[in-house]
């Protein structure tokens, strides 16, 4: 039985490794590309691993300085951090209300969920027109607002699940001791759902960091998030593949960190709390 199981695991491990080659090779290839020279990129047969003396940050510095990556990273950081804070802040309050008071009933909770189905292109036109009228195009505000709106249902549902797992008695005793509703939420509930808050913050941060369509539509020159920069470099005439690869490596850092540090909550996050692992 035990040797059978070992053989089974070895066999399955071999198949899974093959699958992993498919799922990780593109990332690995981009990483290797980010250390190549332009000549090596076009070389045939392809250069697999760049020579040792090229393992430096030349392409990274090029992407950050010459190609405007520094500004792009800053813009993406500002937009993603502000979006995460606002959507989790607003979302936590709404989640508390839905979890503890069933505000609006089941129907309202599902309406919130269903707004996530709304195709972003469909809201892009009206939002674009409003932002144009309000002179918000090409500012951080436009992106923060648009991303907050699209991340809210996620934040609300995720946090609602975390709050519903807490026993109500703790808040109840705080209320009896004279705390206001907000006081009970702020001092009792919030500290207890810290893992949920962190999960929601990190997810909304990465979703916004990775977002492309609104970033493309709502910005021109003043604001230029990393995703837009990568796309515009890749669409140019003389494509600096290695620099774009370097920018790509920088762009995937938050996502990879999320995978490493938030494994336990990833399924929960991706299904908006519908499944827990």
């Amino acid at each position, binding site marked *: 039985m035990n040797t059978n199981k070992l053989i089974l695991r070895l066999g399955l491990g071999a*198949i899974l490794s093959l699958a992993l080659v*498919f799922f990780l090779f593109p990332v690995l290839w981009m990483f290797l590309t980010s250390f190549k020279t332009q000549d090596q990129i076009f070389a045939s047969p392809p250069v697999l691993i760049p020579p040792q003396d090229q393992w430096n940050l030349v392409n990274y510095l090029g992407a950050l300085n010459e190609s405007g990556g520094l500004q792009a990273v800053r813009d993406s950081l500002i937009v993603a951090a502000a979006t995460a804070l606002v959507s989790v802040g607003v979302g936590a309050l709404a989640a508390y209300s839905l979890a503890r008071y069933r505000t609006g009933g089941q129907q309202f909770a599902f309406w919130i969920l269903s707004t996530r189905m*709304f195709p972003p292109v469909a809201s892009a036109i009206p939002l674009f027109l409003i932002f144009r009228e309000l002179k918000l195009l090409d500012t951080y505000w436009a992106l923060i607002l648009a991303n907050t709106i699209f991340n809210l249902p996620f934040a609300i549902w995720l946090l609602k699940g975390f709050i519903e797992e807490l026993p109500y008695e703790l808040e109840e005793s705080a209320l009896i001791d004279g705390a206001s509703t907000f006081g009970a939420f702020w001092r009792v509930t919030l500290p207890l759902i810290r893992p949920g808050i962190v999960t929601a913050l990190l997810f909304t941060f990465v979703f916004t960091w990775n977002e492309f369509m609104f970033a493309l539509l709502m910005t021109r020159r003043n604001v230029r998030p990393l995703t837009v920069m*990568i796309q515009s470099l890749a669409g140019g005439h003389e494509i600096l593949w290695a620099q774009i690869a370097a920018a790509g490596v920088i762009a*995937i850092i938050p996502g990879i960190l999320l995978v490493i540090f938030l494994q336990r909550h990833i*399924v929960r996050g*991706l299904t908006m709390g519908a499944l827990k692992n």
Partner: protein
Amino acid sequence: MKNVATQSTSRHWSQRLLGVERRNWRPALLFVLPAFVLLLSITIYPLVRTLALSFVTLELSVSPVERFNGLGNFTKALTADPRFGNAMLNTAILAVIGVTIQVVLGMALALMASEMGRTRAVWVTLFMIPIMIAPVVSGFQFRVIFNDTFGPLNYLIREVSNGTIRPPPWTASTSTSLLTIMITDIWQWTPFMLLLLLAGLDSLSQEVIEAARVDGANYWQQLIRIKIPILLPILIIGILIRMMDTFKTFDLVVLLTEGGPGSSSETVAYYTYVNGFKFFSMGYTAALAFIQLVVIVVVSRGFLSLQQRQRGDLR
């Protein structure tokens, strides 16, 4: 806890009397207000404005004047615009074929990973990576891989076949451009199905499976008669999430093919974008957006009622 809200209105004067504020509903409304207003601004407001726009002609590149056009935009989209029909078809291909492959691969990988015992967490972590990568970056990665002149894929095909197979210029050929988008999408989202189904497999009751095993059911019988039916509600939700996402397929199109060659790889989201933000035909774009919305609502309603029926069956 569940009936806090229903009791709040009828009993709140008595709670006042007792000094118990916990069923006070006013803060509850106040708490939900900011979220409500923000969400209205992406649903009801755009819905109304999109609907209003869809009945007019508004060519922003020519003039900011709206002219009433009746149902003109809709009839044009549904009867006289083969490019829109093509984009719909491409999106449907991604939603049906692409998502099916993701489900089958994800299921197979989840079943394998669930047998891996203590090393399982390591496998799962490695598989998770594609999910969290920005689609723009995924698109770029695959654009390099599929590149005809220096991409590793075509080099490999030429080497392995000793030059007998001439691989297509993947993203630059009308017959394979959509396929490159589908493969990238499969690459990015099969891990999501894997995670979802693995969580589902974990929640299966071991007793049921043990009972089936004792009754002499082999692995495949257990899988088809017990595991898959129990996983079905989760599976339906996963398929629904992914199908809705294919309606948003935009980043990959921009990075890999820009809809081309010709319009061979245009998706609905991309074609809508082209009309709105390249041609600036806001009225027509609004009509396209509205048609998509109707399709999405119909499809998701269908799936949700299917899921409800499934749940009903199991009970």
